[in-house]
């Protein structure tokens, strides 16, 4: 272990723009499903830089979720190396990965996965209570423009609102990176755009690197960089020189 996750890693605000957050080399992931082996990732090299907005595009089964899960410390590669700043994720154990998730990375899922028994504010507080130097929960909710609905329970919020609470919850710990797996997958266009705007705002105002997984090519227009995957490989990696405004996007 090079360094522990509990200390010694700089916050995104202190780093330079081009500082590498993730550096993955030669990643392979094979799932053993009964008698067949499913190859989810094949020799993938991948980088994510501080402050960047990245869209990971690909069809279902292309391996994008597997990559994101490995980056997020939810899964480990079969072979290859993943470095988070200068820490080797691919060699971390369960406890270290938990600490990593607790302090450094935020998740947003397609199904918001809020705790139904806690209000919006409390769902965010759940994370700020265990983080090192978090935002105030109210602050995180204001960031996603939900400052008015702090005391609503998930069952009292719309899908878009729930997803924004999820974003506030993910960002409140001031993570270096936000990993979003199909964040608009369960939402209609307008609501989806509100959610994406929230992500953009987090990226621009807090400086958090954001990686968005989507099968929806329209969304790639908002990324600084677009990485396309197919059958477990990265087939395209383009820097997007002409980012569109979210208001122009339709799907």
């Amino acid at each position: 272990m090079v360094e522990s996750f509990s200390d010694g890693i700089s916050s995104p605000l202190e780093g330079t723009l081009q500082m590498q957050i993730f550096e993955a080399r030669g990643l392979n992931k094979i799932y053993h499903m009964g008698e067949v082996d499913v190859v989810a990732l094949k020799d993938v090299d991948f980088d994510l830089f501080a402050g960047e907005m990245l869209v990971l595009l690909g069809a279902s089964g292309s391996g994008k979720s597997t990559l994101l899960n490995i980056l997020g410390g939810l899964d480990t590669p079969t072979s290859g190396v993943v470095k988070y700043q200068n820490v080797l994720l691919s060699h971390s154990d369960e406890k270290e990965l938990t600490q990593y998730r607790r302090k450094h990375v935020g998740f947003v899922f397609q199904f918001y996965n809020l705790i139904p028994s806690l209000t919006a504010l409390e769902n965010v507080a759940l994370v700020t209570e265990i983080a090192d130097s978090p935002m105030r929960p109210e602050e995180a909710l204001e960031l996603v423009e939900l400052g008015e609905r702090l005391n609503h329970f998930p069952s009292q919020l719309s899908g878009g609102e729930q997803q924004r609470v999820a974003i506030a919850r993910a960002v409140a710990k001031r993570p270096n990176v936000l990993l979003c797996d199909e964040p608009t997958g369960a939402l209609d266009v307008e609501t989806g755009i509100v959610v994406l705007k929230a992500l953009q705002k987090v990226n621009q105002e807090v400086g958090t690197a954001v990686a968005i997984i989507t099968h929806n090519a329209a969304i790639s227009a908002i990324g600084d960089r677009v990485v396309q995957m197919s059958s477990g490989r990265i087939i395209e990696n383009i820097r997007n020189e002409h980012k569109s405004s979210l208001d122009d996007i339709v799907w």
Partner: protein
Amino acid sequence: MRAISKKLFRDLWHHRGQMISIAAVTATAIMTVLTMRGTYESLYEARESYYQTSRFPDVWANLERAPESVRSLIQQIEGVSVVDTRVTFASTLDLENQVTPAVGRFYSAAPPSEMLGALHLRSGRWVSENDRNQVMVSEKFALANSFSEGDTLKAIINGRLRYLEIIATAISPEHSYAVPPGSLFPDDEQYGILWMSRQAMGAAFNMEGAFNEVALIIASNADIRHVQAELDQILKPYGGLGSYTRATQISNLILESELNSNKQMGTMIPAIFLAIVAFLLNIVLNRLISTQRQEIAVLKAFGYTNLDVGLFYLKFAYVAVIGGAIIGIFGGVWLGDLMVTVYRDYFDFPDLAYSLSPQLLAISISISFLAATVGALSGVRSAISLPPAEAMRPQAPARFSIGLIEHFAVLKKLPSATRMVVRNIERRPGKTLFSAIGVAFSVAILVIGLFMFDGMYYMMDLQFNVAQREDLTVSFNRPLPERVRFELGRLDGVNRVEFNRMVPIRIIKGALKRDMAITGRNVGDELNRIVHSDGSIMPLSLSGIIVSKYLADNLLIEAGDLVQVEVLEGARRIENVRVVSIVDDFLGINAYMHLETLHDLVGGPHLITGANLAVMGDAQADVAKKLSAIPMIANVSSPSRGFDLFKKQMSESLFVGIFFLVGFSSIISIAVIYNGARISLSERGRELASLRVLGFSKKEVSVLLFSEQAVITIFSIPIGWYIGKELSRISIAQIASETYRFPFMVDWETYMFSALITILAAIGSSMIVRRRLNNYDLISVLKTRD
């Protein structure tokens, strides 16, 4: 096999932990029914058939002495079918291996065909009428002292040492449970029943042509009270001590109370367990059905009828019950057999064996199915009423609100994780409450089982360390002048002598009456005292009478009342006496009076019937031996021996008792906590997976999952104590009898122990569920829709 049956098997396999726990609770219910009620039935049957074949009497009466001619008078009482007259005496037996002298209760044995309560010979032959030294002894006494036929027994009969030849061992229905006078437990080493021929008894005890006990069988349609009244009337001139029936015959009484407690336990414990089966099936099936909404919809969409779907889930419940029933039947028969074996050591029945009646089996199984059906009903009903289209949609998200608890100021600052626990509990208060009540029964069962020992120990401790503090209790075989106390005091090693007089009396209050003995004693008595259930010593007043609370309750006597006391000996005077106080005591029914006042009541010379001695420590055996050699002394006993005997028996039954109680209680708490935790995990798996993704450690997540179960367990403990205490109070009232009453009290150790076992069981079952939580696949959980 049909596909739906395959689904049933696989679903059952998937939920095997829960099914096994429910089956275990069912098994315990059936097992306790078959053990306790089965033993009850077996004992009952054995007793009935033994009483039938041995011609067990309906009425007995003791008297001083009546000529044999009185027999025909008795025979003429309307309703009397058979009369058996006997001669009976207690004597000291000189056993070489015993420190304190043993007591022999001698009876005359009529020829087998004429005898009521006929002896059943275990070995040897019947005594011959002409041989005056032949004796038949009770089998247990023989076994305890390793006597066999041909051995010689030394007895002090009427002041003379006699050598008696043992020619047979026998059992008698009147002494199935042989308890020495004044004791609660059999003492086979020191108390034996001996039978000699009527002639030999007559000669030995100066009772030729006379009898001092009579036993009757009455016609089935006869009025037993009328027979008793007539009998008492006839025996009055002959020193009749009042007749009594089976209800107060000591051996039958103890057997009856044992039968009752088996019957009661065999009903109460299974009822608790079956209620828990119903509760568990209710929560498990409701959860199962809510996770299988889509499957139910698909089945219905394909044309499976509501009946098919309903039966599918009902079968779920029935499989658990069938599994439990099979284990319960085998376990119950095995345990019942074991228990009857234990009973054989206490009750002498010729053919006591465990037998399981088909009715009992059928009833216990049907009631288990009924409990399962009741438990499954609400789940099955919701599965049936689910419209296919609606079932395809996911269930509406759970609604939460800020509950009552959080309005308390102290709790406003709770961390979010703790709020989750509080709100989950508050959202379904019913489920939480029932779970807590379920676990509470595991606490309660321990309290009910153990408090009995607490009460018994307290009672015996009070009896032997506060009330009966004498080293030796002496009783004379006939009333003697008061001055014999000086002779007793002169024996080497005797420090103090207190003397008393016991007189048979009849207490009459209005239409109610009771034959018993009254004890006359002295105000300054230090060794033997009248003690209240709270341990306080009750002073003796110079006038009036003190009676046991049990007697007072039965005869509707209150302190200050006047009662009629009829003396059943001597001049047989009747006088009104004031009840000065009522003593809440534990053993027997008692009446006390100041000795001088009793002398005045009886009239005639001032006589005493026994004494209590304080003896120097090492002289006890020596003094006891010397005393037994004195002709007019019938019995010398040591109360501390009774206490030792009691402690020995109690520690044995306590050990077995604790083993079963801990088992029973753990089965309940494990089943309730395990199923509760499994259901929580199933309902909240997604939530817990989210927390793991947010960086909560496995430990933090388990704490969240199990704190609900922990709260339930902690709540359940005081509820369990309360339920246990109240059920104990009820069973105490039911067990209370003339022979003994348990004081109601629960030691703090019992409370602590019951809580500890339940907590351990809860921790154990949480560990099992925690393994499951640790193996949770975070990603797949989060990627599915609710």
